[in-house]
Each structure stands twice: as structure tokens, then as C-alpha cells.
């Protein structure tokens, strides 16, 4: 017994390393476990509280710049509004003629980014809204220029968002005007790849990419990005499109979560 104890003491560093690696592997392999989700949910609430003063300072520094930008945007939008109102009326009357009901209706919950994690690569952001604001897991998170992720872990007053550039993130998208659908995943920086596209789909550089609506998380036609390159290998049965997304993940301060989504029957 004594020799066993002495051996343990002698090799305590190796033993400790083995224990640390084993525990880490347990966490890695049980990523989807409800217990792990619960712990992570509680911890993001705590860390959000620590980080909230910094988020406030960051927001204040950005506020001036944002106000100027919004003023400019406001004038632009006011000019566009007139023509769009006319188009809206026309669209409504045409829909009435076709007896067409609305495809989806959803409300947006504004949320501020509290932190972006502390690991060396950004793959998640934490928002300042949680269960008490009606957020649940698997809700779409977006900014005006496009989708940026989905809610992954929801705490009482904060939410962890899996960003679009996370290695395990996939998004079903549609490319217009060809209407070809595929699965989007991150490649590098703000470049993404759409795979599983039909070989005969007519896709061109500059085509718009939106959500397909096949998923229960994302309603259709949310903006995603624009095609910048098409890879069509002769030996492959599918086409691959590379796209660039507009949102800059590292500088996002405000987002929207789509809550209370309801898909009506057409």
C-alpha cells in the first residue's frame, strides 16, 4: 500500500495530466449532454455579469459613430420608402388576387453583444437577453445585413450564440435567381462554401444567397451573402459555390433574435 502511494506521489504529474486530459475528453465527448448545457447556461449568466461594464463602455464609444451612420441611413431609407410603399400596395393587391396567405410571421428581439468569448478564435458571442426575454435554443440570430448564427445555450439573462463561422455550423441556403439550394459552412475569414448544389444549377458570381426555409430555425429569404466563386470540378457530381457574407462577426455590437416564429400554411 505504501509503495503504491509512493508510486502515485512519484508520478503525480503524469497522473494529473492523465486526469486533466481524461476530463477534457469527457467534456468534449459529452458536448450535447443536457448537464453540460445546464452548466454552460449558468456560467454564461455569471460571466455576462462580469463583462457587462466593458460591454457598456464599448457600446458608448460606438454610439456616436452609429448615430451618424443611422442619420445617413435614415435619409436614404426615407427616399426609398415612398417607392416601396407603392410597391407594397401593389404587391398586396396582387396577393389578394392570387388568394395567397403570408408564409411566415416573426418578431425580432433586439440584443446587445456582451462578449465574444476569450478563446483565440471567435466562434461564439454572448447576448444580453435570455429565458426571461422569451429566448429559447435554436432561434435565428441576425443583423440587418444577414444571418450570423443561432442561439445555442440560453441562460436566465444571457444567451450564447453559435456563430456562422463555427466549425459545426451548417445552414440550408438558396441561391437566387437560380433557386438552387445547398448547405453552407464556414471556410476562412468571411468566405463560406455552399456544398450539395446541383451540378446543372445556373449560378453566377454576384448571385444573392438567402436562407432556404427548409429548416425550422430560419425562415426563408433571410439574407446571407453573395456568390464570389464557383467551383465546378469535372469529376464531381455536385457544384460548390463560395460566398462572402456582409456582417463582420468580430465587430458586431447589436443583433436581433427571431422569437415567436410561426410558419403558417400556404
Amino acid at each position, binding site marked *: 500500500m505504501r509503495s503504491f502511494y509512493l508510486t502515485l506521489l512519484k508520478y503525480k504529474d503524469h497522473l494529473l495530466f492523465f486526469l486533466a486530459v481524461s476530463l477534457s475528453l469527457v*467534456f*468534449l465527448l459529452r458536448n450535447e449532454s443536457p448537464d453540460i448545457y445546464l452548466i454552460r447556461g449558468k456560467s454564461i449568466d455569471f460571466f455576462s455579469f462580469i463583462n457587462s461594464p466593458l460591454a457598456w463602455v464599448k457600446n458608448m464609444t460606438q454610439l456616436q459613430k452609429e448615430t451618424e451612420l443611422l442619420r445617413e441611413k435614415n435619409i436614404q431609407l426615407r427616399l426609398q420608402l415612398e417607392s416601396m410603399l407603392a410597391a407594397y400596395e401593389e404587391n398586396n393587391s396582387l396577393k389578394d388576387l392570387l388568394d395567397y396567405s403570408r408564409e411566415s410571421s416573426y418578431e425580432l428581439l433586439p440584443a446587445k453583444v456582451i462578449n465574444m468569448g476569450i478563446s483565440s478564435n471567435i466562434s461564439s458571442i454572448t447576448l444580453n437577453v435570455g429565458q426571461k426575454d422569451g429566448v429559447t435554443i435554436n432561434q435565428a440570430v441576425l443583423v440587418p445585413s444577414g444571418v450570423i448564427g443561432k442561439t445555442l445555450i440560453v441562460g436566465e439573462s444571457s444567451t450564447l450564440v453559435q456563430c456562422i463561422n463555427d466549425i459545426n455550423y451548417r445552414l440550408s441556403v438558396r441561391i437566387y435567381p437560380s433557386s438552387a439550394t445547398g448547405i453552407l459552412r464556414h471556410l476562412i475569414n468571411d468566405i463560406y462554401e455552399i456544398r450539395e448544389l446541383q451540378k446543372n444549377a445556373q449560378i453566377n458570381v454576384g448571385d444573392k444567397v438567402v436562407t432556404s426555409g427548409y429548416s425550422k430555425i430560419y425562415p426563408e429569404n433571410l439574407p446571407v451573402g453573395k456568390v464570389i466563386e464557383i467551383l465546378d470540378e469535372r469529376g464531381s457530381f455536385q457544384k460548390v459555390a463560395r460566398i462572402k457574407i456582409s456582417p463582420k462577426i468580430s465587430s458586431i455590437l447589436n443583433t436581433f433574435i427571431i422569437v415567436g416564429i410561426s410558419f403558417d400554411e400556404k
Partner: protein
Amino acid sequence: MKNNNLLFATIGVLLFQIFIVDFLTINLIRPDFLLIYVFYIAILYGRVLAIIVAFTLGLLSDLFGVGSYFGLGSLTLSTTAYLSGFLYNKYERLLPYVFHSIWIGILLLHFYINTYFRFQTIFVSDIANFVFIWLTSFSYTMIFLLIMQYFYPIKQASRVKIN
């Protein structure tokens, strides 16, 4: 006393990483001050303490928010702490270029594991880009580690016990 100092230093580094890292983000890549700290702890105090600190910091960093691969932070930091522990008190016993090559190799391995997990798709489809991301992440943290050399050189840290 030593334990208290270490505890405060660990909390300080964690808070530094939390508050400062966002301002130093370049193209989604950030410096890893936790890694630098764990590395120094390993060559200052040895493997046992370094693994405990590394595992704790890694876990806290993951709890702070990662999209996927919860546990990767503690795995990579613990591995780095374990390997860096071999350099504890070794500066005088190894040739300088061997000593420096070993710690650079350990940090490269840390970033290789991290980058491999986070960018598996690029590893399969575009190895050159993968190597580019790996080396840029490594270099960015290395810049801060090199700045640290001005204040507290690694060779001095590794010689503390002998002195």
C-alpha cells in the same frame, strides 16, 4: 503566500484576457494570454501546478463561451502545461537553441491542435490556408510572448530555482 500570489495572478490574467482581448482582435484571431501565462507557470513552478492552473483556466475560458468543442481549451492548455513542464529548471542543462526550439515547438503544437479542431474543413480542402491560419494564430500570440521577453525572459524564468 505563494499560493495566494498565484491565485491573484491567475485571476488577473483571466480578467486581462476577458477585458483586453476584444480590442486586439484581428480578422477573428486573438492573442492567447492564458497560454503565455500557463507556459510561464510551467517553467517557473513545474508541471503539477501548471497542469492544475492550465486545466482550470482552460475550463473557465470554455465556460466563458465557445460555439462548439467545449473542453478543447482545457485539453490544449493542459497538454501545453505538461509538455512545457519538461523545461522546468532545464535552461542550464540544455543547449540554448535546443531549449528555445522545444518551447517554440510546444506552442506550435498547441496552436496546431486548436486550429485543427476549429478549421477541419480547410485542413481537408486547402492545406496551405490551414497552415496560414495556424501560423498567423501562433505568430500573433508569439508577438506578445516576445514583448514579455523584455520584462521577464524565459531563460531567466527557467533559471529561477538554480539562482
